[in-house]
């Protein structure tokens, strides 16, 4: 068993997951219809019992919606698409506050409030302090405030996406977007293996530090070997055991595979996608000269 074969194992699973996704949807729709409205509440409580939405708060949306939101934030706030037109500046300001709201409604109140305070602070500095400070200090404040207001919204949006999405949701969503396997497989492997590799690396590092300074002195090739060899052998061993465990639990049972990850567009997704679309429409209109 090697890493590559473990990876292909994971790849196999993901392929199965990809094929199984519409089946998931069908099964969900089917059971919803059959059970009827009265038991929807029961299903909801079962879902609550299985802990699904607990760490996501009120605002639950599809990973694909999140990707669109983050992309929109990047497009307008980070790259300043749309230029200096009056309406685009308004759009940009509204968008800058969006991550604060998103975080507030997904149980990241601390981050949301902190971010909102930052924005207000920047605005205060820009309106009340900047006009009275000149010279290089003024320029420094201007540059740093400008950079922060440009970068923070997109960064906070990406943070929101990462903390509210599990690996299986993200991969399920990517597969439905027909993202090719060479991209989704490394993501799946990274999610599962990166923490393992990091922990192993830490232990190896400890063992090396304990053995003392001789590693520091010039033996670069050997140092690399000492680091990489145990990491590789341990990773292979863990991959091997992981494969055994997965195989006894039915990996590869069927070409298809169901998933309990709740992926699908709902009202909230529609609303958010519409808002994003509105931003792009505003951009188009300004480009055509209809909006100022």
């Amino acid at each position: 068993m090697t890493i590559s074969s473990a990876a292909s194992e994971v790849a196999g699973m993901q392929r199965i997951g990809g094929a199984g996704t519409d089946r998931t949807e069908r099964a969900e729709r089917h059971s919803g219809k059959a059970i009827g409205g009265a038991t929807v509440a029961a299903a909801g409580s079962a879902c609550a019992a299985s802990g699904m939405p607990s760490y996501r708060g009120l605002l639950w949306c599809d990973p694909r919606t999140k990707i669109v939101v983050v992309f929109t934030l990047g497009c307008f706030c980070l790259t300043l698409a749309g230029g200096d037109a009056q309406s685009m500046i308004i759009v940009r300001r509204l968008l800058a506050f969006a991550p604060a709201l998103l975080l507030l409604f997904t149980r990241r109140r601390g981050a949301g409030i902190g971010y909102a305070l930052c924005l207000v602070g920047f605005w205060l500095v820009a309106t009340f302090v900047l006009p009275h400070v000149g010279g290089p200090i003024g320029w420094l404040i201007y540059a740093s405030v400008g950079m922060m207001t440009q970068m923070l919204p997109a960064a906070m949006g990406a943070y929101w996406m990462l903390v509210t999405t599990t690996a299986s949701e993200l991969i399920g969503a990517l597969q439905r977007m027909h993202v090719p396997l060479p991209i989704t497989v490394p993501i799946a492997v990274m999610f599962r293996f990166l923490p393992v590799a990091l922990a192993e690396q830490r232990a190896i590092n400890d063992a090396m530090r304990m053995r003392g300074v001789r590693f520091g002195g010039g033996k670069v090739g050997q140092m690399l070997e000492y680091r990489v060899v145990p990491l590789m052998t341990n990773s292979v061993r863990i991959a091997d055991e992981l494969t055994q465990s997965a195989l006894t639990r039915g990996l590869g049972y069927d070409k298809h595979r169901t998933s309990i990850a709740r992926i699908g567009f709902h009202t909230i997704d529609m609303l958010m996608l519409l808002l994003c679309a509105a931003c792009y429409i505003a951009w188009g209109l300004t480009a055509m000269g209809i909006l100022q």
Partner: protein
Amino acid sequence: MSDTGIIRCDNVSFTYANVETPSITGFDCEIHAGQVVLLCGDSGCGKTTVTRLVNGLVPHYFEGTLTGRVSVDGLDVASSELAELGKHVGTVFQNPKSQFFTLDVTGEMAFGCENFTMPPDDIRASIAREAQRFDIEHLLGRPIDALSGGQKQKVACASVCVPDPPILVFDEPSSNLDATAIGELARAISLLKKHGKTILIAEHRLYWLANLVDQVMYMRDGQIVRTLSADEFRSLPDHERQAMGLRPVHVEDIEDFASVRGGDSANGEIADGDTGDATDAVHSNTDTAEAYQVEHFAYRYQHSRNVVLDIAHAAIAAGRATAITGLNGAGKSTFARCLQGLDRRCRGTLIEPQTGRSLRRKQRLSSCFTVMQDVNCELFCESVLDEIVLAQPQENKSVALDVLRRLDLEAFADRHPLSLSGGQKQRVAIAAALASERPIIILDEPTSGLDLRHMRQVASMVRSLTHMGRTIVVVTHDPEFAIAACDANITLEQGRLAEAYPLDAAGDQRLAARLTAPVAA
């Protein structure tokens, strides 16, 4: 089904590919539905191969030559698909690090059912059912990384139960668990038994299973040499058990491990004038000039208010072996890391006996040597000899060979470390510690998953290291090993020093009672 047995092996032999000797030969057994069966015997006796025969990893994953017939729940193992067998047999493995396929508890519990293409709502209902049964509802949705060892093993049990297989196989489930976690595991298994599951357990540590099993199969060299009923197992005479190489069946027998420590008068000295009272013991230790003094060890994680470790004072007798015991999460491993000086955020000093020099973190890094729990992380070289030379303060092959000779490893000098068995690797790591010529040697959980013979071997190695004048600190939750190898015990509780006492007769009893309490209760 009940009259023919749910698991049947008829004259089964199996030889792994690339290995000459068969792992099991002429293996016959019949297990009836609803029974809890224990497989025991030395490492390498074929226990794990039997569990693999039942869950289908042999012959579907591990290739080799299989003769005879294995049938499980009416299926012929050799001709059934591995994934199909997965519906009938659930397996809980030894190492929690490598048996979880996803990163969160809910996803993990869903994994099997998702593979078996159950409708999502049914899966959610099954997850809710098993979570309630195993009392882990509060863990759902949490990242698996954040769980303790016992919680992980409970999640593993619950996960394999979600698709509701009639047969469950456990391969050394307790090796990484502390007393509380073993207690929880024992309760989980008795619950599964009550629900009519057929359970097959391969295990070295036996005391926690004494009241759970219906039948015990004792294996040697790939065959069942003795089958015991539950009553026979519980009343197994001590000398017979020892002759069979089994670990204690009863908590009371654990104290007898002091015999390994044997004629060493070490604990006697420390215990002089000791009335068995904890504070007295601490003082008698403290007053000994021949002890390392641990002063103000404190550690807390970044961004955390909780102190993980806070020890104002402790004494570690020089030239003796001291056990650091306590539950998972009590701060044992953090203590070991701090003592070794591996962590920058750890405060505190260690005062040497005699010189009175206080060793700061950087100095401790070069005066202690840790044999890590996962020895695979500290084997770097191409031969065992190189491994020893690497640990030496000055490279010197003849001294290194001498170290290998002293620990009976001479024959392996030219072997590649990774080609050795787990026990041998561990001995190489201990040899490296000896070769480092550092006064303090720390062993982090050295006996997880060792059988009686190997455990005794490690214990006698620890004894011989103390005879060479080394100070040994053993982090362990294995009462059998602590009693067999150590002279004194320090118990940690929530990062604080709860008690310290010498391991004399009274101390042994106290330690054994403490480290097995949750099972006995």
